[in-house]
């Protein structure tokens, strides 16, 4: 068996297991030790890896923004102003919606009745209660005109070869 001898307190239960467990494993190559230990000692301790987008982006972005400090400050101020205005507007709209009283169905019906009475006193028809205007009647088709398919001339008709249209045979 290998140098790391089995320290099992549970012996293999069958001869095959015992036979397999007795097969000696390969030893670690001797030349690895010095290389692995030397590399382990000399590898610098690195900070936890930042996500790639955070690690790569600020370099050029920071450099770009640092070149134009006034423009950067103005842009930041504008963004803050837009954000404040947007937040305030949203808050005010919410407040108005919250303070608007709800109108009951009875109040709506009463208002409609009052409006109808007013129009009646004025001697006019309430346009909202008037029946919708009837759609204009479709102009009567001239009896002279036939459907386009009937008006189409056949080859013989065109050349005056037949005086009457022959009946079509189904066969």
């Amino acid at each position, binding site marked *: *068996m*290998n*140098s*790391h001898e*089995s*320290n*099992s*307190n*549970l012996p*293999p239960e069958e*001869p*095959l*297991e015992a*036979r*397999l*467990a007795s*097969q*000696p*494993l*390969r*030893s*670690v190559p001797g030349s*690895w*030790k010095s290389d*692995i*230990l030397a*590399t*382990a*000692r000399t*590898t610098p*301790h690195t900070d936890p890896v930042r996500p790639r987008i955070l690690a790569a982006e600020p370099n050029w972005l920071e450099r770009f923004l640092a070149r134009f400090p006034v423009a950067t400050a103005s842009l930041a101020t504008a963004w803050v102003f837009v954000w404040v205005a947007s937040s305030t507007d949203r808050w005010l709209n919410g407040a108005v919606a919250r303070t608007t009283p709800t109108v009951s169905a009875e109040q709506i019906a009463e208002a409609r009745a009052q409006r109808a009475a007013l129009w009646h006193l004025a001697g006019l028809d309430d346009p909202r209660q008037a029946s919708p205007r009837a759609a204009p009647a479709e102009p009567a088709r001239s009896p002279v005109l036939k459907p386009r398919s009937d008006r189409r001339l056949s080859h013989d008709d065109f050349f005056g070869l037949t005086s009457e249209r022959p009946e079509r045979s189904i066969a």
Partner: protein
Amino acid sequence: MSDSDLERLYDAHAEALFAFLLNLTRAEADTRDALQEVFTRLARQPELLREVRDERGFLLRMAHNSAIDFIRRHEVRRRAHEGLAAQPTELFAQSSDPDEAALRVELASGLGELPPEQRAVVHLKLWEGLSFERIAETLEIPLNTAASRYRYGLDKLRTRLRPLYDEIR
């Protein structure tokens, strides 16, 4: 961690870690990289071992995690070279006895056909001699899972090796 501490850890555990990693990765280059990763982490973060009672178990867990990372990282490469994992690896020492040599070749090949999770359990049970409780702790899996993986893995090896084993017994 001092140089002498790191060297002591290497002398005490490198053999076991090497065999375990080689059985998992099935490639000597990956084994070396994974072993390097383990010792580099220990050198950088000596506090990892400060409150560890079972040093071997802890290092085997580190090696297992490292090997799994390698296996995942190189999955594309392994797919491109389909069947690489099933290739016989020089996992065992050379033998002058032809019967033993044949058994070792067949065993290495059979181990390569097992899924890595079964292979890890079989290795720790047979060649590290760990109990199922310690295997479960090392691999951070339930006890029943460790036992069932061992049973399935051993059944496959038995099926594979039975003809040869009966012949040379």
